[in-house]
């Protein structure tokens, strides 16, 4: 699927956890986005687009989760149903569910849980099993746990304050649960993903985040150094093999 500019209309835009919103967008015609890919949203009044990972791909729409972290996402959170948005989509490489043999471990930190939802659906459609371990600071930040459970996969929660699930990091929850898996996929804060990659022997994929310019691979604003040389997070990633990342 080639990158295109496309008009979407907001169907709903609701707060689902602390500072966290779920945005449902619809368009005319079919939408084809794979897990781990993202869209770049033009926000009226702001110069650069906002890159947001895709949490679910509907036949004619998208589900996105975002956190209010600055003026742009604050403005997004105040947009009402019916508002028209112009998106660039689809962007970036995706996760590789086909590389999982039988059972996958999905590890999300905070809003990093969002792209794991579409990944879980893809894995299940390929007849594979999945277990999710999600980490949050506090109970009021928890999102996507019920949605993932509704797919029929086990979901384990870790919270830093111990208010829900295992007290501590996702690595503590993984150690407690000891799920069976042959490949893992992770998205979340860099220190979390670093700890996960250090703790787990299996092959794994990580979804990185970087401040982007164009979002489509031609401005080189989001380049990182990897074991394979410079890579653009937007176009060569955001998903990378864990071995490629220089922690």
């Amino acid at each position, binding site marked *: 699927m080639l990158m295109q500019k496309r008009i979407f209309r907001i169907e709903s835009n609701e707060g689902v956890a602390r500072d966290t919103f779920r945005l449902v967008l619809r368009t005319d015609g079919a939408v084809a986005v794979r897990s781990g890919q993202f869209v770049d949203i033009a926000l009226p009044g702001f110069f650069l687009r906002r890159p947001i990972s895709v949490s679910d791909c509907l036949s004619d729409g998208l589900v996105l989760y975002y956190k209010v972290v600055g003026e742009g996402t604050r403005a997004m959170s105040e947009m009402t149903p019916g508002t028209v948005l112009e998106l660039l989509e689809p962007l970036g490489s995706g996760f590789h569910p086909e590389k999982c043999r039988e059972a996958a471990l999905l590890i999300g930190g905070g809003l990093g849980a969002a792209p794991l939802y579409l990944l879980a659906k893809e894995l299940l459609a390929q007849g594979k099993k999945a277990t999710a371990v999600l980490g949050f600071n506090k109970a009021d930040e928890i999102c996507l746990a019920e949605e993932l459970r509704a797919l029929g996969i086990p979901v384990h929660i870790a919270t830093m304050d111990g208010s829900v699930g295992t007290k501590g990091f996702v690595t503590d929850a993984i150690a407690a649960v000891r799920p069976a898996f042959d490949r893992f996929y992770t998205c979340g804060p860099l220190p979390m993903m670093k700890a996960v990659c250090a703790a787990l022997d299996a092959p794994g994929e990580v979804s990185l985040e970087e*401040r982007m310019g164009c979002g489509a691979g031609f401005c080189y604003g989001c*380049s990182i150094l990897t074991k394979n040389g410079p890579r653009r997070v937007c176009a060569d990633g955001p998903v990378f093999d864990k071995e490629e990342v220089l922690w």
Partner: protein
Amino acid sequence: MVAEKNLAVSLCGLTMKNPVVPASGTFGFGIELADAMDLNTLGGISLKGTTREPRYGNPTPRIAECTAGMINSVGLQNPGIEALVADKAPALRSIYGGVIIANISGYSVEEYAFNCARADGCPAIDLLEVNVSCPNVHGGGMAFGTDPKSAAAVTAAVKAVTRKPVFIKLSPNVTDIVTIARACEDAGADGITLVNTFLGMRIDIRKRKPVIANTMGGFSGPAIFPVALRMVYQVAQACSIPVMGCGGVRRAEDVVEMMMAGATAVQVGAENLRNPMACPEIIAALPALMDSLGIDSLQEIIGII
């Protein structure tokens, strides 16, 4: 239906089907966007700035948003001059028939000359744009473009090694742009591209540190358009060589305005980063705009002010 309009311009003996050129650094090596649009609608393409050795560039974050613009601190990430002449430029040539502009950087007069000599030997390249104005690399780049003697020295050195047209891309971060443009003209430049980005800075007031990892970077976008236009006008008035206008151009009206100020071709930079289709959209909008303004040929409006 708009009557047939002539968008073509002549630049140093090269015919451009229209004056619109994606600016260096905002369009990769062109090939990155081949799937997203018909590149052959573009009058020219200025390729990513290239140094002798491959460069990774600056640490991230390299991008900061601003009101009506953005700051970048990419720092000339590029695969090096050999990759440009052996791979990138020929790959673009194989799919693109317009004017291919190699943007050349360096850390010394000798490096500029070396890179231009290599580019001169590459048939895929039509025109050299020598960047003496990058604000994002230390010990090179902008240092050559803020002093008339240095700018002239680079110009003379590269003119000695190439028969392709040479444009010098100037920095706006100077007291008197005209003096520097004249020095380049006197040293043999075939044209001037202006302007590069303005040195800028943002601070994250919550984290109490600069947004850009390298502290400062180059500011561009619609906010700089009036300043860039003024400099294009001043240089076009003072010099007899052609000017490629650059800075904050985002729509067909801006292209016409730049040309009236004296630009023969017009580069589009930051706008590509918010809208990758900006250049083809601007080109598509030009005929109807020309019609409403009573313009039959863009060549006629160059420098009418």
